[in-house]
């Protein structure tokens, strides 16, 4: 049980990592929900409003939270496994965190362009729907990472 034996000096890193990851998941859920609601709206104010809010949530909340999560992860990894000899669950973290960050960045760009086009009254279905799909894929990947970080499979 890591929780019982973790030195106090690791707690700051773990706090940053967990807080960043929780806010990141929250931002993805919020942005994804708004994008899905935007699909159901007409091409007028509703779709454009939800697309803009989703884009801002990803840009202002999700991106900084990803950095907090990732910096916290590297900080605690350096304390817990200073020699670099890491168990497989750390690998699951890397496999999800970094490609997930790239997909998140792509979704921000797509959501931003989509929101801009919708605000001008132009069609942006494929852009906003692609951004939604990416957000949901990233969210699913981070839920797998959450399982790996808590269950710590060998």
């Amino acid at each position, binding site marked *: 049980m890591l929780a019982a034996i973790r030195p106090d000096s690791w*707690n700051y890193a773990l*706090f940053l990592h*967990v807080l960043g990851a929780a*806010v990141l998941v929250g931002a993805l859920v*919020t942005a994804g*929900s708004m994008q899905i609601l935007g699909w159901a709206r007409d091409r007028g104010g509703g779709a454009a*409003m939800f697309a803009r809010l989703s884009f801002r949530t990803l840009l202002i909340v999700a991106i900084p939270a990803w950095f907090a999560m990732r910096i916290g992860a590297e900080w605690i990894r350096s304390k817990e496994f200073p020699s670099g000899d890491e168990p497989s669950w750390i690998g699951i973290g890397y496999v999800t965190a970094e490609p997930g960050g790239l997909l998140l960045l792509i979704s921000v760009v797509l959501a931003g362009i989509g929101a801009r086009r919708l605000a001008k009254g132009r069609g942006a279905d494929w852009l906003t729907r692609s951004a939604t799909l990416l957000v949901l894929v990233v969210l699913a990947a981070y839920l797998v990472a959450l399982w790996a970080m808590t*269950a710590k499979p060998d």
Partner: protein
Amino acid sequence: MSRYDWLLFLHVASAFALVASLVLYTVLIAALWNRDVPSEAVRLFRVQRVGDVLVAVGSIGVLVFGIWLAIDVDGYEVWDGWVIAALVLWLVMGALGSRTGKLYNAARDRALALSRDGFDGSSPELRALLQDRRALWLHVAGIVTVVLLLIDMIFKPGA
């Protein structure tokens, strides 16, 4: 996976759902802040349903799986200081959330009523409800309480 692994996963996943609900409500409050047109507010409030599900699942999950963990894990007891602190913070969070919810639900209901009456212009009354400082500060206090809960869970003072 052992029972401990499952309990820890479900406890942490519930905490993530709780934080996710706070992120969603914060974005919603910010998005509603300068609105005064009922139909726009009603549209935005639709996303509140997702937050309501997350806060219910998250707050019940953290409590149930947290107490289960405290009973199940050797070395932890429900009467440990940091566990009692977490239970007190959970109660504070629930009380704050309930009061915040009542204020924002009143704003949502007013927007719905105005919209049903066919009014879709600028409503100073709706704006005042959406910019209620008391509701905002209660929400901020709820966020601070959840951050304190997270600090308590990670640092486990006295454990």
